[in-house]
């Protein structure tokens, strides 16, 4: 089903696979704690917007087994958990801003006691009018901050002068992360102010900072450790901090270890989602389907606090071009405050919402002109020598789009299958087939440029085993496996000599989140840097040892090679020592065998006010062809086949990369099709459980699913010539969304533009069909 030709050298199983298949792998909820452990519970707001007039915790505090009941007044430090802007309280003080907002905390010896105490908390709320839809937020102008824009040329006049033009609106929906492991933290108080925090967090350094701040203590008293997460996808980039802060407050107040694991429904109700967007666009194009001008306004729902909204909106604006050169373009972005949980990072980080707009535009261009949409896409691709500068001024270098297009249209049999779908549709009244090709070009780097840094601490022990610490976190993406491989390759030792430690703020400080698909790029370079420092030290010290009596032709440090578990003189093969034997020698020679490594991405920078610069170190490319079958009577669709070709440079680990691509695509498929989030008119989440919110099951994936890596495309300047993989494949699922639209469009024999939004639920499809028939 999958192909990684040309990438076969680095096939290594996931470093924790053996622990996972035996059930030994330890997640936060599995950590063994003494009998002292208390259960923590969060009491949340039942109102989307209300004043807290009064509350009484006396009766709750008196429940036997209850050790702490806390309100905002009991926070010893700062009542804030905002990661960038300080507008998100840890516990509500005098007002609540969404249903599910944390108001009180309880710690007790059992979950039953927690619930008993919760029932005795008496609060008087005065409900206020909430803002629950983007339309209301836009109408009332509840902007979270000033609008942003990126402008090149004069889009308005280009559109006006264009031979063809249209305008439209696109809604893209929210999405729940649905990591299998819900939010969880365990805090164990130590001596004095010390606190050990075990958190399922993508950003341990920020978790540490916020825990210290709510407790009013120094960061040096807080150690955050992350062994692994049971999935995260962006949902544990900032919002894992919340559970950690609440747990820390309870541990501090009770003096006992406390664990909070959110029940699934509570997690879904309390945590933020992917930002829903309402986008309005106007496009001008010529007879060949070439885009001449695009003007777009992106409105996004930030929820009740800022969180990472501006960075997400910015990435949406930076990816509105996707892979297309648009000579004149204006994109404006506006983020609004609503009374819903604060929306947050989710794989793609605004990229999908931006790309969906331009893919919808291209799809409409093709339908308007009666052209094949894939061909219109190809015509508009960024060029290799000209037409290769993005709307924000970054040149698209090493553009693999033409190669991907040629190979993928051939391997998927695109042209023939498109014709076959037409034949099928002509003879089927109630079942239609559609096919679509969509590309992705995704910028790799944090757009907040200073975040592009990473640290590592590599230790070599006297027996020759190596312990790698780095700032990245493992959430299933295989980062630790890749770090293990990089260290083993750098030291020339076998994998079993290298262990990657749990991520720990006491080992590597002040790290960036494991996000932006940059985990391997940044941490891999930091690990390599530490290895280089250690190797230089070892080479210096071991050279005289290898020289021995041969002083007339000494071994020089620069001749030393690290390979096959040995340290050898490259000029004299006979002079060598095993890596393990060399380490006691190093200790006798008083050589330090620990080193910290550091990396910062060179040559990037971006002026977010002017909207110009080089925000990305490079671009990752991919492409997909997807075919869907649609039942016009029920709106039910089946993904018949998907073909993906993706550019990972030189893969660090082809199996892991293929798995990331397939997993990303299927997660995107969920966003595009079945994952629909609904709130009622009071701001209550209706889809708060897996029986009402549907992520893809195995039965929803393409019937035939082919994924392959582009070969022979090393990426210069990155760790072992690799490229990032985590996020970009998500957006390839837009091909499934547009394949469904193509099938829908076949109902009118492609003569009418169907109304369409995302996700394309059965309801959206059937309503659209009704309108197609009515027109």
């Amino acid at each position: 089903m999958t192909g990684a030709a040309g990438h076969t050298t680095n096939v290594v199983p996931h470093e924790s696979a053996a622990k996972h298949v035996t059930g030994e792998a330890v997640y936060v909820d599995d950590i063994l704690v003494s009998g002292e452990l208390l259960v923590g519970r969060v009491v949340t707001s039942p109102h989307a917007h209300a004043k807290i007039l009064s509350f009484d915790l006396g009766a709750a505090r008196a429940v036997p087994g209850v050790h702490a009941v806390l309100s905002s007044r009991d926070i010893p430090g700062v009542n804030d958990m905002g990661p960038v802007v300080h507008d998100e309280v840890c516990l509500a003080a005098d007002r609540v801003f969404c249903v599910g907002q944390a108001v009180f905390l309880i710690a007790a010896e059992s979950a039953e006691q927690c619930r008993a105490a919760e029932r005795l908390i008496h609060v008087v709320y005065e409900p206020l009018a909430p803002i629950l839809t983007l339309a209301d937020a836009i109408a009332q102008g509840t902007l979270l901050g000033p609008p942003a824009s990126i402008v090149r040329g004069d889009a308005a006049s280009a559109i006006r002068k264009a031979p063809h033009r249209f305008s439209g609106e696109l809604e893209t929906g929210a999405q729940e992360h649905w990591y299998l492991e819900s939010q969880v933290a365990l805090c164990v108080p130590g001596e004095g102010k010390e606190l050990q925090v075990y958190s399922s967090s993508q950003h341990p350094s920020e978790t540490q900072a916020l825990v210290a701040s709510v407790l009013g203590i120094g960061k040096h008293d807080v150690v955050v450790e992350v062994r692994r997460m049971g999935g995260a996808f962006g949902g544990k980039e900032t919002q894992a901090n919340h559970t950690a802060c609440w747990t820390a407050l309870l541990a501090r107040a009770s003096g006992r270890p406390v664990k909070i694991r959110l029940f699934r429904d509570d997690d879904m109700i309390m945590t933020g989602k992917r930002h829903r967007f309402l986008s309005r666009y106007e496009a001008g194009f010529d007879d060949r389907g070439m885009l001449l001008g695009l003007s777009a306004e992106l409105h996004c729902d930030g929820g009740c606090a800022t969180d990472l909204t501006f960075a997400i909106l910015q990435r949406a604006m930076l990816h509105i071009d996707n892979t297309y050169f648009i000579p004149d373009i204006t994109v404006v972005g506006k983020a609004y405050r609503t009374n819903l949980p604060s929306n947050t990072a989710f794989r793609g980080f605004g990229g999908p919402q931006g790309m969906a707009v331009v893919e919808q535009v291209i799809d409409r261009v093709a339908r308007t002109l009666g052209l094949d949409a894939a061909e219109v896409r190809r015509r508009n691709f960024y060029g290799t020598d000209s037409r290769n500068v993005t709307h924000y001024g970054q040149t698209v270098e090493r553009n693999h789009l033409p190669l991907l297009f040629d190979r993928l249209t051939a391997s998927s049999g695109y042209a023939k299958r498109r014709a076959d779908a037409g034949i099928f549709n002509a003879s089927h009244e109630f079942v239609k087939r559609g096919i679509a090709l969509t590309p992705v070009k995704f910028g790799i780097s944090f757009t907040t440029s200073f975040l592009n840094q990473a640290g590592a601490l590599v230790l070599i022990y006297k027996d020759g085993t190596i312990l790698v610490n780095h700032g990245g976190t493992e959430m299933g993406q295989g980062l630790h496996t890749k770090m293990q491989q990089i260290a083993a390759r750098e030291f020339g030792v076998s994998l079993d000599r290298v262990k990657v430690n749990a991520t720990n703020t006491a080992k590597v400080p002040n790290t960036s989140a494991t996000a932006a698909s940059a985990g391997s790029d940044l941490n891999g370079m930091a690990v390599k840097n530490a290895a280089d420092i250690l190797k230089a030290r070892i080479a210096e010290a071991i050279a005289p040892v290898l020289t021995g009596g041969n002083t007339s032709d000494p071994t020089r440090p620069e001749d030393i090679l690290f390979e096959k578990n040995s340290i050898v003189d490259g000029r004299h093969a006979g002079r060598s020592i095993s890596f393990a034997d060399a380490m006691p020698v190093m200790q006798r020679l008083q050589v330090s065998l620990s080193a910290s490594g550091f990396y910062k991405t060179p040559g990037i920078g971006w002026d977010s006010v002017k909207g110009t610069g080089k925000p990305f170190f490079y671009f990752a490319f991919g492409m997909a062809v997807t075919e869907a079958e649609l039942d016009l009577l029920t709106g039910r669709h089946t993904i018949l086949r998907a073909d993906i070709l993706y550019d990972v440079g030189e893969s660090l680990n082809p199996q892991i990369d293929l798995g990331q691509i397939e997993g990303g695509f299927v997660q995107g498929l969920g966003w595009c099709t079945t994952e629909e989030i609904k709130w009622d008119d009071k701001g209550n989440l209706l889809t708060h459980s897996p029986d009402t919110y549907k992520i893809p099951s195995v039965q929803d994936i393409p019937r035939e699913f082919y994924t392959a890596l582009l070969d022979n495309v090393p990426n210069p300047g990155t760790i072992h010539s690799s490229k990032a993989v985590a996020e970009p494949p998500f957006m390839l699922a837009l091909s499934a969304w547009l394949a469904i639209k193509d099938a829908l469009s076949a109902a009118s024999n492609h003569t009418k533009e169907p109304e369409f939004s995302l996700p394309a639920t059965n309801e959206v499809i059937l309503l659209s069909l009704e309108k197609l028939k009515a027109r």
Partner: protein
Amino acid sequence: MTKIPITTTVNGTVHTLEIAPHQTLLELLREGLGLTGTKCGCEIGECGACTVLLDGEPVNSCLVLAPQIDGRNVSTVEGLMRANATDPLQDAFMDHDAVHCGFCTPGMLMSARALLAEDAHPDEASIRTAISGNLCRCTGYVQIIEAIKHVKP
């Protein structure tokens, strides 16, 4: 609260226990017996992370009340190892990178174990049916299907 006495066999070991009537099998395994390999994903029978075998049949342990296992056989992921060596099913999951974050893995393995006990060479359709109650948010399922297809007999 009155406790209920039960005798049950978990991964081949007989346990005589006194349990609360409302305790779920999932809670008993994780908290009572320290078998934390079985995962808790939703507690309402939707995700399959808590799948174990009850007399060989896959069940969501979050939906089984612990008293119901009186006199019955429970197998969990911890019982898959054979004489200190991994089972071919476990090997296949490792070889095919069917394990990403690993949170769905124990449940997937137990559903696959039940399938393979009935059919040593299942086709793709039966594999899909067998794991259709096990959600995975990481892999996109392809590597899991491939792993189950390639379990060495």
